[in-house]
């Protein structure tokens, strides 16, 4: 008896280990299509207004987007932006005509094209060539209740090293593009924290191009907001590039937190590693994770792995997880993905309680443990502290929700 059923960690292991599909299931609204063939444009008119049946919108509650996907005009008080820049890092507010903008990729959905067409001022953060900025540059966006469109460009010039944090708080309805340009030999960490108030709506397309022998660590932390939909995409402009996409999310009752990732390997000898972990609690908490990886024919020597894990803490929550790997060349080092969604493990709870630890504390330990590995990966102490505090706050809510126990 009492065999430990560790459903939070099934033996997922490597790709191909269990039967799974790489395309659309029968009955899905859109036929199988290569990720490479997606429409991209700066002009919102090129995209029909989504109706929810499209592959890339089918999980998103469109009715709660307040028109961000359908041409809503900016209104109300704009978000207040404060910047705390590391020594040597340049930050500027520029007009939309600035020649540096719009160079990193092209919007791939209506909301991103709309955001491009609608923003008035863009924030440009530049880590100058060969600067080693170990302190983070923090951009705090404090929502003031209005609806708006935003644009951010982060440039890490060649052989620089820097950390840029976009910290979103308050109430706002915002759609944004974030361009991330990592030049040859640069090492950049970008952290996007969504710690919004309960009523915020946030769409953000975060596109990165990583140069020769350059490294990008992209971290997404989604905790607050009514609807948050972050779409990080990464591609490479030279061999030897390395991308690490890390994500942590914690959905409460009624929240919709969606992360749509795309890593486009079109250049040889690049590496990508994706780890997203989420916890869900409360009625109608919903998370969506889409992980698309495309290894094009030219991308020999590619190494890629993506992992998504979800921990469902209470009844009534739903986690969707769709890894998708397309491989057009066999000359690669490795490619794999794993996805696992499990409920809170009662055997873990029993084990900890049998050592005198109260239920509330045991739940905290397990959830903290679940995220711990990820938080350690981030490697920026200030961010780690902030995340630990945020997770503690979420756990406080969790305990109130679970009610009973200690």
């Amino acid at each position, binding site marked *: *008896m*009492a*065999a*430990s059923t*560790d459903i*939070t*960690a099934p033996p997922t292991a490597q790709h191909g280990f269990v039967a799974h599909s790489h395309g659309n299931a029968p009955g899905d609204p859109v036929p199988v299509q290569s990720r490479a063939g997606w429409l991209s444009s700066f002009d919102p008119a090129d995209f029909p207004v989504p109706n929810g049946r499209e592959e890339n919108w089918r999980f998103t509650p469109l009715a709660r987007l307040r028109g961000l996907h359908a041409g809503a005009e900016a209104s109300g008080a704009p978000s207040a932006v404060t910047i705390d820049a590391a020594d040597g890092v340049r930050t500027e507010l520029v007009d939309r005509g600035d020649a540096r903008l719009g160079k990193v990729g092209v919007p791939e959905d209506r909301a991103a094209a709309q955001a491009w067409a609608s923003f008035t001022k863009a924030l440009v953060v530049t880590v100058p060539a060969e600067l080693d900025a170990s302190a983070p540059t923090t951009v705090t966006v404090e929502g003031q209740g209005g609806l708006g469109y935003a644009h951010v460009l982060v440039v890490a010039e060649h052989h620089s090293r820097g950390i840029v944090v976009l910290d979103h708080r308050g109430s706002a309805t915002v759609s944004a593009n974030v361009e991330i340009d990592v030049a040859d030999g640069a090492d950049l960490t970008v952290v996007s924290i969504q710690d919004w108030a309960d009523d915020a709506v946030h769409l953000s397309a975060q596109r990165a191009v990583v140069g020769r022998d350059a490294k990008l660590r992209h971290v997404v932390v989604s905790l607050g907001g009514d609807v948050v939909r972050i779409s990080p995409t990464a591609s490479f402009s030279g061999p030897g590039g390395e991308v690490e996409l890390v994500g942590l999310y914690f959905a409460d009752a009624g929240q919709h937190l969606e992360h749509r990732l795309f890593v486009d390997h079109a250049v040889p000898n690049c590496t990508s590693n994706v780890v997203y972990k989420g916890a869900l609690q409360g009625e109608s908490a919903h998370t969506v994770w889409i992980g698309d990886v495309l290894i094009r024919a030219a991308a020999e020597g590619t190494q890629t792995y993506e992992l998504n894990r979800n921990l469902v803490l209470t009844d009534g929550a739903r986690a969707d997880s769709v890894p998708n790997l397309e491989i057009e060349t066999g000359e690669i080092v490795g490619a794999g993905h794993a996805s696992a969604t499990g409920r809170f*493990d*009662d*055997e*873990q709870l*029993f*084990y*900890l*309680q*049998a*050592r*005198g*630890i*109260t*239920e509330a*504390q*045991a739940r905290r*330990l*397990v959830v*903290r*443990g*679940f*995220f*711990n*590995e990820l938080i350690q990966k981030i490697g920026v102490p200030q961010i780690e502290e902030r995340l630990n505090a945020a997770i503690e706050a979420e756990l406080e809510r969790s305990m109130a929700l679970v009610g009973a126990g*200690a």
Partner: protein
Amino acid sequence: MSVLEIRDLHVSVETEQGAKEILRGVTLTVRAGETHAIMGPNGSGKSTLAYSIAGHPKYTVTSGTVTLDGEDVLAMSVDERARAGLFLAMQYPVEIPGVTNSNFLRTAKTAIDGEAPKLRTWVKDVRSAMEGLKMDSSFAERNVNEGFSGGEKKRNEILQMELLKPRIAILDETDSGLDVDALKVVSEGVNRVLAGGEVGALLITHYTRILRYIQPDFVHVFVDGRIVEQGGPELADRLEAEGYDRFTTPATTGA
């Protein structure tokens, strides 16, 4: 001196066919300083007894009482039972990803004692207990039971028993899956805990071999959800020689 008293305990478990009674009237008293061995064939309900006392939610007590020094154990939550002085060394210790063993041990010790242990003595206690169990110091910083071999998990259980200092310890098939060397190391750890004479132990086992290293004062034969025979250590020797056949197949001979 602590006393665990089990009186006419009936326990059932939910199955697809409805509630199934596993324990059918168990009566047993374990006093501090006593070591009781519960021996029986697979499926006899030995482990159910252990987990019912610890409070596993899978089991429903339908009648009977369990008290520790007169306190109603069955009214307590799982963690309250542990804080009252009960300890269960599990047959299948659970992995807790992302939680280091040292964090877990300190958290448990703080919960049991009601205050954080003094840092200097605690670190020393952990280190010497680990050395005694021949556990590499790296086990402190590894996640709880994660990637541990079967033997390492059992050592980790006994490590917890040594550090948490229960009043009554229940060891559920602690010998299963151990080679002789590991069995000796684990048994020595148990004996260190029992040596003071202040801990009562309930040793659940299928085989007699652990009883060569841990000397029981009483042996109880457990069959079909109840104790069918009791005796001293000599009963274990007889079981070693004869097996359980005479208890399980009274009408026929052989298996």
